[in-house]
């Protein structure tokens, strides 16, 4: 990381042109997003089925969640989506230091999100609101099937959280490359691909928030 000189991107040997390379990368990342949707989707389908089977359990479960924290995290992720998109915008314009700052902001949002998540998790685990077999909450009377709600809560937010973490690692990698001036108007494919992934993580949270925190 000693030199901060712009390094022009070299098209991989098996592509004829840069356009072909970009097209391939974007098609690849969209297919990957599709697999992500189906993977999360399995959980959503399970959620929908059990919510219809046991509506009372899900209603009672959601009262244990603090919608304010959920809303805060929603805002954080939305803002991070903006900064991610702006980072690409500045790269397209050739303003690479602004692009890098936007990436830093995105990473910061990721940290805030995980911090809030940590507060929520530790509070619940402290109360004994753990998934499935580890459920030990006894302070107030609860429905018999309540652990099932928390199984879904932890599986869905856990899988989502792990994706946020993965996204943060990728963004950190982008920051390093951005400092080395790898990106510019002619080449910003990694920014775009990681960006798409990050937006998808945001997209999933857009659904998770009302489903888990606001069910009536």
């Amino acid at each position, binding site marked *: 990381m000693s030199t901060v000189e712009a390094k022009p991107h070299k098209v991989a040997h098996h592509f004829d042109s*840069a356009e072909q390379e970009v097209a391939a990368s974007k098609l690849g990342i969209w297919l990957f*997003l599709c697999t992500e949707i*189906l993977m999360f989707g399995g959980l*959503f*389908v399970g959620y929908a089925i059990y919510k219809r089977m046991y509506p009372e359990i899900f209603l009672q479960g959601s009262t244990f969640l603090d919608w304010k924290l959920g809303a805060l995290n929603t805002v954080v992720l939305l803002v991070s989506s903006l900064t991610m998109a*702006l980072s690409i915008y500045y790269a397209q314009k050739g303003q690479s230091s602004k692009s890098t700052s936007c990436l830093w902001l995105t990473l910061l949002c990721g940290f805030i999100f995980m911090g809030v998540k940590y507060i929520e998790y530790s509070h619940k685990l402290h109360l004994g609101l753990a998934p499935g077999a580890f459920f030990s909450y006894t302070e107030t009377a609860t429905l018999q099937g309540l652990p099932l709600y928390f199984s879904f809560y932890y599986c869905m937010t856990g899988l989502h959280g792990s994706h946020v973490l993965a996204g943060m690692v990728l963004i950190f990698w982008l920051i390093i490359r951005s400092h080395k001036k790898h990106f510019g*108007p002619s080449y910003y494919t990694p920014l775009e691909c990681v960006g798409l992934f990050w*937006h998808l993580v*945001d997209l999933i949270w857009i659904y998770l928030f009302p*489903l888990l925190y606001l069910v009536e």
Partner: protein
Amino acid sequence: MSSNHHIVPFNVYIKVLSALLVLTVFTVLVAQMDFGVFNVLIAMGIATIKATLVLLFFMHLKYDNKLFPVIFLAGVFFLVVIFLFCEFDIMTRIPESSVL
């Protein structure tokens, strides 16, 4: 090179974010009220509007290769398929009553 790619204007991004934030406030407000069976539908409707905004502008679907929305929707489609079949199964199972 890829400089011929469409650059979304700066203020479009800001408008989209504002819309998303407004919708977030809206969904929280709506959740305080009771619309009976429509509760879930409204919540999911708002979420879908938000998701569409993210897809179209942040994820550039509006300006990009038309194959990408097809891929994305294919994923959603098969989710709907697995959901419908499973629900159809569970709802049409005939419960056997115990007689002992």
